[in-house]
């Protein structure tokens, strides 16, 4: 069993979105705390502070709840905030997914900020590779909307969930995973591209520099048009420029969305998945000011 509940609706802006997410999460087994500011969502070992900013939904992982502290000042927090640039709203739609794959709890959200244009944020416990202390992931899409960047799916100024391309230029590359290794404790691995290899940080598997890039780019089978789902893997940076697999996001996959419309549900064996573009895949001409994330999409278990 995996997904516990799904909800879709509309929200007037980030504050309304966070309120509705809190209600949804609390109704499905999560504890939603109200610290000095923002909200703190917890379940099991997962803990993340969320804050409704003027034009973004901001998230920061932590390890221990501190009621007297702000959402982003919880004990042993990640030291960085990942931003989901949803804008001020109102939003066309949201989709909330809550569940647990093999006991790994998660809370995932998709926001259709305007018709056909999406953002995503996720938090939960990885399906770990092996055993280690940690495993909480907190990540989001954060798209650079400046002209010439907004329509470039491989631009390193963007951030996507489980990214292997985002650099620290422009203040992005802020997704983070708690993983203690190589004598590092309470270590939040910042997720970013490859050139700045720092021990204790990490990398995802999505976009051009990612391990599964060829898999998703190849698309679907020519005869059947079957499109596989690919895991969203995080890796931790070790000594000697080597990496270890940390795990994958539960009940969420990478998919080539070329054959699907946003929000479509697809059946894979006994499973149902709902697919969305990472940002947008509009029909017609792509201009230098069009939101466009190529064929990259995320699939969420329904």
């Amino acid at each position: 069993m995996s997904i516990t509940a799904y909800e879709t609706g509309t929200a007037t802006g980030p504050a309304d979105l966070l309120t509705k997410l809190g209600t949804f999460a609390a109704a499905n087994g999560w504890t939603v705390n109200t610290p000095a500011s923002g909200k703190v969502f917890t379940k099991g070992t997962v803990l993340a502070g969320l804050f409704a900013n003027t034009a973004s939904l901001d998230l920061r992982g932590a390890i221990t709840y501190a009621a007297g502290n702000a959402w982003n000042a919880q004990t042993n927090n990640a030291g960085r905030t990942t931003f989901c640039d949803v804008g001020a709203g109102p939003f066309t739609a949201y989709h909330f997914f809550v569940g647990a794959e093999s006991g790994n709890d998660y809370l995932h959200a998709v926001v259709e900020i305007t018709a056909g244009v999406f953002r995503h944020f996720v938090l939960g416990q990885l399906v770990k590779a092996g055993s280690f202390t940690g495993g909480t992931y907190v990540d989001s899409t954060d798209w650079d909307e400046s002209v010439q960047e907004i329509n470039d799916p491989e631009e390193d100024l963007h951030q996507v969930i489980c990214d292997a391309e985002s650099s620290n230029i422009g203040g992005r590359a802020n997704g983070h995973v708690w993983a203690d290794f190589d004598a590092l404790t309470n270590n939040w691995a910042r997720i970013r591209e490859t050139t700045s290899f720092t021990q204790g940080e990490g990398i995802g598997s999505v976009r051009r520099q990612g391990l599964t890039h060829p898999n998703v780019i190849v698309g679907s089978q020519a005869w059947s048009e079957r499109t596989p789902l690919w895991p969203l893997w995080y890796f931790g940076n070790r000594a000697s420029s080597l990496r270890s697999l940390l795990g994958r996001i539960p009940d969420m996959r990478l998919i080539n969305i070329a054959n699907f419309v946003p929000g479509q549900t697809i059946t894979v064996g006994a499973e149902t998945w709902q697919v969305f573009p990472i940002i947008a895949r509009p029909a017609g001409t792509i201009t230098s000011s069009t939101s466009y994330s190529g064929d990259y999409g995320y699939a969420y278990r329904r």
Partner: protein
Amino acid sequence: MSYATGTATDDSDLLADLRTFLKTSSGSGGPGWSEQEYDSGSKRMWFTAPGLGGSESIPIGFDLVRDTGADAFALRCWMAKTYNGALAWDAQVGMTAIGYHPISDGSMPYWFVANGQRAIVVTKVSTVYTASHVGRFLQYGTTSEYPQPYYLGAPRASNTRWSSVSENFRNFYDPGEASHVLFPSGIWYPVSNFFDSGGAETDQTTANYVWPFQGYVTGNYARERYRELRNNLDGTYPLFPLTLLAENPTAEPLGEIDGAYAVPAFSAAAEDTITVGSDTYLVVPNVFRSQRYHYAAIKLA
């Protein structure tokens, strides 16, 4: 699934042991393949494998080739789309090119792993581990959509001594010059990750390939990401599915090889076994290569 391991006294003994293993019924611990023809002189044999459900007929053949002058010996393997006993052995419908698995004419350890749809043969000569795959892989989609997802993963295209260090000499999971996949169209096409150029391991850029060892069609990133990997934080090992990705003549995902995985062999060595859940895997290098990113894990049970 079943497997057998032992030491053959020579090339003929290896083939005899393989024949006995493949014919052993599933009730007696073998894969239960049906022998369609056997030539005692040449030791050439055609089998049909029954598939996992017992209703298929997957044609697979083996024999030996010996060149004592060149000190070159090989287990040869091939496949076809159908087997017809009224046709000559080498005139079967939809037959592949012949693949060569270099061995020696002396004593050599072996590992045979097979089920109803495929066999993997691993041999060891000196410190050279050679591995072949014949049979069906796990296709993306249904059998009605892709009825014959066959992969002939052979190390060489001609009889070559086992000690060759050509970069064309590669095992089925990271192939070179002699592997082929049967597309949904019913046509065999080559599968190749690397080729030898002046003795250097050189990326194939437009060929069908096996991920994660290769992915150069979209640049060298995926291959480099794989080569950076080591074992997990707790010392266990991740297994990555050997994924057949097509590029030529069409770009499409085909499926995954059954019973073998890519494994970053950091702090591991050839013939180590690793356990994942209740399964045991044999760690096998790619022929003579010993870098950690050239290993596969072959499921033994």
